[in-house]
């Protein structure tokens, strides 16, 4: 990975203002958003938005033409810019033709995307292009880049703002927010009144009526579109929708998701040119209104069968607000105008594919953004696809490739290497964990101990196991790599509970890695090979159910395998049979284990929701109910479903971010005062138990299966 990105990450993590402000905002955001959506059906609304926007993306060209005709009928001039360069040249020409000396702007991401201000200052005689959104103005004055799509200056303190404004206005200003806002009002007011041209963006463009919809809070949008006698709107093709009524659902969601408001203070819908008053005070019946409808990569995106989904984005930035990585590092690390998860995708098409290829590494795949996106975009899937394409283009480092292709697909070799590792690690093992690794492996154990590889994996400990009494059903146990070679005790506990439920349990010996590491590293061929091996191994046993403790493995076997074989009907049919039998442990026990009898455990427990168990599988109630049945006292922690920062190979590639996220989790766990942390994911266990151990904390981390096995009445 480029060292620039690494440096940016370290700078961001060490910036207390930034992590403080973002962290506080991240925590306040969710409850506020929840409140704003009270009485609304978010799922229904986002379904509608997804329909509206995907329909618009399909028909982009036709809608663009319809928009153009309508807007021109209403007295606006529409210019279709193929590229950012064409858009810039057009606007520069307008400035020169009208001899404009002073321009005011209200927030427009499209203009930032093409670096419009710079261009106008260099290529025309304009003296000033002033941003008027308060956050944007702050950023403009100090020559920085916005760190967030909706809140560009969120990383700055009032002290810094006071310094910047003092310099701008040649006076000594106190760091008092109300006073600073007043200074901005007065300074910018002057600029509004003398500007001959206003440039704005738009949030929605309606083809049916040629209407542009703009949302602002400060009132600068209304001033920009009202006071100067010339108005230029720069809008990307992705803002188009077909019908005026399509505005409804988008306006219901955008402010709620963006800033937890029911509506922004001002919403302006402009359908053509309106009267204005020119600089000399004369009324102009129809002012000049220019709409620059910009493509700049959007058509290319639309033509991509997978990435066209990203055009459903309404730029609410909730995918940033709920992202654990963004909360730690902020937008500057992403290095471009569009930040966060969606930013990674947009950067690929609107700026640079290479850059995006680097950025996709920042994604933990915690799936959280997917649950909140009002455009119903499957961002994690798009990022994996970006990863795959990057690898395809640039190739994978040789060592990695060798491991994936030669080792991972050869189960016997793979497993015998793991066994060798269990011997090789011996000198570094203390108790059951590895605290320090030598040389270049040391990053792995930074802030986190690693669990030791067991010397007796689960496959050597269990086999076929029958219950006392009548067999209710036959179950295959799918262990997953961590469950097999690192945490065999969890599997043994699961066996005990399953037997007690009357299940016959078998361990198909040819089962192997589910393939997720290969998919994540961008080697789908390897993942497909592993899928076939697992399907074959599981078919042989002819069971009623396949149970696993690992939510990621279940997601992969239940869902991803179907995708792997979407163009291969024979394998697809086999994958479907396996998929139908896959169940996660807590759901299986909740459903088939009603008769289980427990002794009261009476331990105080707090529960961590793993990203994949909660968001990918939708399971979070079942383990809590089971644990309560087993008699524990359950205390919920703050942010119980916040990611722990593991993310598979992520904790190896991005150890600094991973650790920062882990630290927060550990604080929340400790604050509950519980003795035991319960969870349902071996990956989370590796991450959190490692972190607790490194910090010398005395909190045990147990899988739900282990606690149930402990409580079960013999």
């Amino acid at each position, binding site marked *: 990975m480029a060292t620039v990105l690494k440096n940016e990450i370290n700078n961001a993590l060490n910036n207390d203002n930034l992590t403080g402000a973002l962290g506080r905002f991240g925590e306040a955001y969710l409850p506020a958003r929840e409140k704003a959506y009270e009485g609304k059906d978010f799922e229904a609304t986002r379904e509608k938005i997804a329909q509206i926007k995907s329909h618009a993306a399909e028909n982009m060209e036709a809608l663009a033409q319809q928009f153009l005709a309508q807007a021109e009928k209403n007295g606006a001039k529409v210019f279709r810019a193929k590229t950012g360069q064409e858009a810039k040249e057009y606007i520069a020409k307008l400035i020169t033709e009208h001899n404009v000396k002073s321009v005011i702007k209200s927030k427009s991401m499209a203009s930032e995307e093409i670096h419009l201000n710079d261009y106008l200052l260099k290529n025309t005689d304009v003296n000033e292009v002033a941003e008027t959104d308060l956050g944007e103005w702050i950023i403009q004055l100090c020559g920085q880049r916005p760190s967030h799509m909706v809140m560009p*200056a969120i990383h700055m303190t009032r002290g810094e703002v006071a310094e910047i404004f003092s310099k701008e206005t040649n006076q000594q200003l106190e760091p008092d*927010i109300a006073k600073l806002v007043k200074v901005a009002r007065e300074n910018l007011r002057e600029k509004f009144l003398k500007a001959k041209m206003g440039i704005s963006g738009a949030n929605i463009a309606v083809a049916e009526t040629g209407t542009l919809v703009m949302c602002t809070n*400060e009132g600068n949008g209304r001033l920009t579109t009202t006071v100067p006698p010339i108005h230029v709107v720069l809008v990307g093709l992705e803002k188009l929708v077909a019908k005026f*009524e399509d505005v409804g659902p988008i306006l219901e969601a955008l402010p709620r998701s963006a800033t937890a408001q*029911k509506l922004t203070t001002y*919403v302006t819908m402009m*359908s053509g040119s309106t009267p204005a*008053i020119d600089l000399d005070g004369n009324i102009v019946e129809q002012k000049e209104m220019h709409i620059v409808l910009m493509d700049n990569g959007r058509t290319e995106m639309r033509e991509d069968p997978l990435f066209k989904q990203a055009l459903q984005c309404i730029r609410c930035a909730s995918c940033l607000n709920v992202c654990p990585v963004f909360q730690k590092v902020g937008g500057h690390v992403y290095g471009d105008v569009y930040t966060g998860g969606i930013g990674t995708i947009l950067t690929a098409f609107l700026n640079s594919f290479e850059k995006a290829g680097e950025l996709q590494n920042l994604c933990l795949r915690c799936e959280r953004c997917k649950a909140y996106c009002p455009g119903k975009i499957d961002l994690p899937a798009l990022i994996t696809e970006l990863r795959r394409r990057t690898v395809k283009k640039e190739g994978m480092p040789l060592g990695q490739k060798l491991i994936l292709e030669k080792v991972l697909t050869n189960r016997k070799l793979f497993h015998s290497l793991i066994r060798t590792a269990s011997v090789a690690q011996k000198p570094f093992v203390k108790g059951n964990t590895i605290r320090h690794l030598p040389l270049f492996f040391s990053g792995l154990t930074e802030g986190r101990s690693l669990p030791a590889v067991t010397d007796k994996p689960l496959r050597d400990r269990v086999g076929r196991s029958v219950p006392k009494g009548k067999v209710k059903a036959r179950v295959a146990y799918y262990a997953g790599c961590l469950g097999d070679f690192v945490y065999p005790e969890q599997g043994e506990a699961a066996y005990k509970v399953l037997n007690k439920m009357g299940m016959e349990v078998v361990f198909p010996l040819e089962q192997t890695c589910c393939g997720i590491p290969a998919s994540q590293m961008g080697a789908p061929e390897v993942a497909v090979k592993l899928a076939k091996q697992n399907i074959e191994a599981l078919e042989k046993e002819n069971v009623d159910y396949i149970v696993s403790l690992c939510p990621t493995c279940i997601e992969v076997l239940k869902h991803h395998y179907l995708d792997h074989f979407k163009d291969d009907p024979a394998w697809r049919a086999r994958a479907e049979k396996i998929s139908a039998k896959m169940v996660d442990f807590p759901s299986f026990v909740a459903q088939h284990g009603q008769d289980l009898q427990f002794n009261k455990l009476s331990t105080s427990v707090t529960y961590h929701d793993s990203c994949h168990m909660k968001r990918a599988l939708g399971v979070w109630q079942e383990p809590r109910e089971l644990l309560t049945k087993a008699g524990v006292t359950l205390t919920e922690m703050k942010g119980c479903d916040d990611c722990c920062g593991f993310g598979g190979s992520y904790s190896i590639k991005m150890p600094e971010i991973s650790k920062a996220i882990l630290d927060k989790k550990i604080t929340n766990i400790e604050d509950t005062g519980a003795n035991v942390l319960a969870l349902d994911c071996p990956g989370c266990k590796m991450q959190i138990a490692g972190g607790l151990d490194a910090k010398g904390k005395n909190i045990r981390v147990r899988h739900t299966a282990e606690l149930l096995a402990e409580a079960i009445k013999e």
Partner: protein
Amino acid sequence: MTAVQDKAEKSYNEATGAALYDRFKASAELLSAEVHRAANMEEARQLVTQIIKDLDTPKVVYAPSELMDTLDVKSIGQAAGVTMTAENLRQQAADAGLGISQLDYAIAEIGTLAGNANSIESRMVSILPPIHMAVIRTKNILPNLLETIATYNEKLGELPRYLTFVSGPSRTSDIERVLTIGVHGPGRLIIVFID
């Protein structure tokens, strides 16, 4: 009467009359708007006179419109001893203490006002002065945003070229996420309903 008004009237009468007003008032006050109501024109004149007097500002700008004329806002202001103007608004509105304009609809659920702002006067007086007074008929309260959009959607041919929605006074949270009222637009929004 246009179809749009017709629909508003119906939804007002049918269920909800007072309930809609109460709901609007509660939602708008959450956004720091000030909400008043007058039973008739005469009461409205007294109310507006009182507000202007309390503000103690020498200059008030207003945007001529049907309701402004019926209210005769110009005479009211002059009687209260302030300079009332509706002209040369680029200059006049910039240093006036109050701007008065009419809006067409109120949205109960979210405390928002909506209306045709094609006239440059209505836009100048509602955005430049530090205080905006919006005058609106009580019968024009609609229940929610989607119905408001639907109302305009029924008569797309009559869609105003500049349709505006206002929810409370101008605000920002751009510095340290601290909410501050009154940035570029007015810092106070006074809403007067006339039955």
